[in-house]
């Protein structure tokens, strides 16, 4: 879904050919989200099939150029105007793993938390290093994207600390509490939209 609109947005400033989309997409997302050529061409075919872009001749090198259609522009406007809903986000595997660890006998929650903390810090260190490079080359979009990734990891690490402290305070394990299935169902993605 996101790749589709991410690619569609590239046509706003003019017609493009397939391969151009790969490099421009990566440039706009700070190089942290590589897409493969196959994925780009498949997505382009779908955009064409759905009438969001249309072929308009070839360039000097004989490559087919595509341009965004009015339908495509409207779809893109709708995409920008719609906030990302929690149901669009993947389930939070970490939350599931940690809460399962905390309620399963014989599992050392502290060790599970520490392994995750180390991994998250390793990732954050790499993002920070990429961010400094992006900053040096004045790649503001890249900096902002990496800031987002760092902020998210910061939140995750804070939550890990909180889980560890809470579980330790309760003797190293949590007691599972049965919840009524229908009222206020919470998914691991903190499903605000379904609560309304």
């Amino acid at each position, binding site marked *: 879904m996101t790749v589709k609109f991410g690619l569609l947005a590239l046509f706003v400033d003019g017609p493009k050919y397939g391969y151009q989309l790969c490099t421009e997409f990566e440039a706009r997302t700070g190089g942290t989200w590589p897409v493969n050529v196959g994925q780009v061409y498949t997505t382009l075919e779908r955009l064409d099939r759905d009438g969001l872009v249309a072929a308009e001749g070839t360039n000097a090198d004989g490559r087919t150029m595509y341009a965004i259609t009015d339908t495509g522009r409207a779809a893109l406007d709708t995409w920008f105007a719609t906030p990302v809903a929690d149901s669009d986000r993947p389930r939070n595997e970490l939350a599931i793993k940690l809460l399962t660890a905390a309620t399963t006998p014989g599992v050392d929650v502290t060790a599970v938390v520490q392994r995750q903390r180390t991994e998250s*810090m390793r990732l*954050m*260190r790499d993002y*920070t290093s990429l961010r400094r490079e992006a900053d040096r080359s004045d790649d503001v979009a890249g900096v902002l994207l990496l800031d987002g990734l760092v902020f998210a990891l910061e939140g995750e*690490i804070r939550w890990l600390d909180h889980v560890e402290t809470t579980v330790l305070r309760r003797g190293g394990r949590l007691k599972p509490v049965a919840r009524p299935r229908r009222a206020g169902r919470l998914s691991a993605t903190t499903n605000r939209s379904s609560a309304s």
Partner: protein
Amino acid sequence: MSAGWRVTADRGTAPVLRFSGVGRVYPSGEATVVALDDVTLEVAAGELVAVMGQSGSGKSTLLAIGGGLDTPSSGQVLVEGTPLGGLNPSALARLRRDRIGYVFQDFNLVSGLTAAENVALPRELAGMSVRAARREALVALREVGLVDEVDRFPDQLSGGQQQRVAVARAVIGERRLLLADEPTGALDSSTGQAILDLIRARVDAGAAGVLVTHEARFASWADRIVFLRDGRMVDSTGDRDWAEQLLEEAS
């Protein structure tokens, strides 16, 4: 295969700071408190190591022992190959003054001295003339972005400026070991980032750095992050070596 792909510089020298089985026990009434337990750690030139852990995990004790401000109950600490335990008090004081720079959360500047005098102080204590020490201090202050403030007293400077002075003082001279204890703790986020930038730059220029922090964002500026719990090192991110990592993942 991997040798040709190493991204991290082959430093090829002895570590600037080496902890070997270091323990620290404090008496507490009838009982004892284990502040550090069998910590082994090496920090090379050009490497910044962050130490993370909850309060009471031994982070600051580790830093104090690394800087010769505290003495281990067991194990050995070497700074540029010199065992700190074998030094008499005046030799230790000299090594601390000439080789080790500190940055603290609350800056620890001498309030009766100007920024330039604070920075020049370790050089004057090492026997340098006032004029030559000031010249070095001005260079160090310019490196941390202070030019117009050099003759101001600490209470005439903002927190961020005071910490810049402290960083300049920590890196003046031949010092190759930079120890920072929550250097961003009293600063807002962007000022903290600017301070980290200075520390990082000094390390990239060849110093060895240890950064104690509880803030993940600042720890992520380090090449390696080690985690302490109850005085023990429980984990480490390992060295940064992306190419090797990629090769491993690919194979």
